[in-house]
């Protein structure tokens, strides 16, 4: 009856999210998309606002808006905008437009963030299936498209010469990221997802000599941070999200101090 324990489920959920986030997080770091998590979280607020206005399920609204954001980021970067700037514009644009739209719709104002953020301690069996299913899909798609994703990250021209379509790689990555963040935010909370996307990958950079090495290290550090964070939260009697981020940030600090990045 392992799954009976909410702690066990939290641990499994944390590990699942850490694996998907570690894989995708490397691309986030390589492609300068660190803002992606926050942008999706902000876009989710617009999604909630729209769902409330049209009476559709909130989860659907979040997914649709996150997907639309991914497509917009893709279109903007194809037009030559720097990806971090495009993400910044969309993050704030989505939030601003979302709040503005909420103000215009009649009815009581609601605290939108309350809809948004899950807590890893509330993860149920269905959520676990969702997380691990999602992680498996992400892992499978990333694995199948690894050469495409990697080469188009390195240089779109080299990808084209190799007979690949780098736009497909960018699009796939954006949609995967949007999906993972939009789902995981509701299950385990925004802080945990966005932090697990960036910090383990950044920490892994100090260790890795190859892209595959970095992806593995990011997954490993993410898993350690998840489990360590849970342990720390139990020990210190604090929230799991902040404790996990604290462990991950600690790992980053130690690895960075121990070794200059460029000597990799």
């Amino acid at each position: 009856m392992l799954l009976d324990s909410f702690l066990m489920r939290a641990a499994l959920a944390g590990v699942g999210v850490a694996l998907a986030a570690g894989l995708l997080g490397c691309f986030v770091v390589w492609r300068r998309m660190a803002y992606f998590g926050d942008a999706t979280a902000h876009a989710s607020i617009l999604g909630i606002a729209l769902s409330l206005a049209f009476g559709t399920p909130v989860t659907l609204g979040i997914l649709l808006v996150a997907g639309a954001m991914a497509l917009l980021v893709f279109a903007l970067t194809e037009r030559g905008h720097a990806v971090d700037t495009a993400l910044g514009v969309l993050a704030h644009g989505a939030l601003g437009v979302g709040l503005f739209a909420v103000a215009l719709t009649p009815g009581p104002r609601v605290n939108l963030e309350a809809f948004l953020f899950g807590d890893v301690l509330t993860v149920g069996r269905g959520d676990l299936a969702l997380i691990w299913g999602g992680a498996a899909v992400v892992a499978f798609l990333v694995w199948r498209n690894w050469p495409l994703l990697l080469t188009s990250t390195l240089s779109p021209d080299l990808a084209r010469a190799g007979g690949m379509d780098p736009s497909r790689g960018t699009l796939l990555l954006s949609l995967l990221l949007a999906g993972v963040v939009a789902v995981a935010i509701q299950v385990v909370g925004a802080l945990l997802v966005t932090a697990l996307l960036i910090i383990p990958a950044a920490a892994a950079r100090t260790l890795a000599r190859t892209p595959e090495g970095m992806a593995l290290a990011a997954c490993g550090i993410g898993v350690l941070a998840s489990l360590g964070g849970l342990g720390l939260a139990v020990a210190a009697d604090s929230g799991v999200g902040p404790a996990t981020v604290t462990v991950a940030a600690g790992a980053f600090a130690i690895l960075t101090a121990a070794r200059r990045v460029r000597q990799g």
Partner: protein
Amino acid sequence: EVPTVLADTAPVHSLVAMVMGDLGEPAMIVPPGTSPHDASLSPSEAQALTEAELIVWTGDAFLPWLGESLASLAPQAEVLGLLDSPGWEPLPAMADEDHGHEHDHDHGGAEIDPHAWLDPAVAAAWTASIADALAALDPDNAETYRANADAASQRLTVLGQDLASRLAPHAGVSVAVGHNAYRYLERASGLGSSRAIAHADGAGPAPSDVTTLREAVLAGEVRCLLVDAETDPSWAETLGEGAQLRTATVDPDGVNLAPGADLYPTLVENIGQALETCLAP
């Protein structure tokens, strides 16, 4: 002449409306439910602040950002901070537990738990303070204000008695809550101390808090979870797995009720009813 009056939240607005009666209608500044993140004053709200002659608000401990707005936008207005008003017995803020939405941390003296409106007796005392403030500004109608306040006070006292008798069978019983916002309600209803899941700092609950709560639920000590706008409903599942845990959806801020004098009594009755159903054997 009847002054222009502004109230901060829907419950306070309701109390002010009771006191003003037919003489006038107060306006409301803070749309309920908004978090300080997304809350920004609309120009008409700002305008209302600059034109108000009396502002009745809960207090700095509840909405610190509104305090700043009052200073810059409404220097002309009389301000009545209900948490600082006399005639009622405040509860100290819990040292270890949280408070909810957006409460200040008062550095000076004792800190007050700001969710005081959930006790009808406190609300009754507040109507007197509101009447005093109105009477000072509008001596011509002082009598009416006082009379309205007395009537309101009576109505609220009855409301409190109803609540207590309705929940009398469950005296001393604890419920689970999202965050510690219901201590005045417990005082009014005779319920036992509620058990909060989350701290107010945005950090989420600690695993040990959840474990303790779950043990209480499994042991049958806690049979009901109050879910409000700030509580993630999926807690019901986590806490209640393998046990009998009912949930009651409550609206302590009156977000979903029509504003007006009747809002506050409806709000309290709704909570009472929800609790009664939830705690029924």
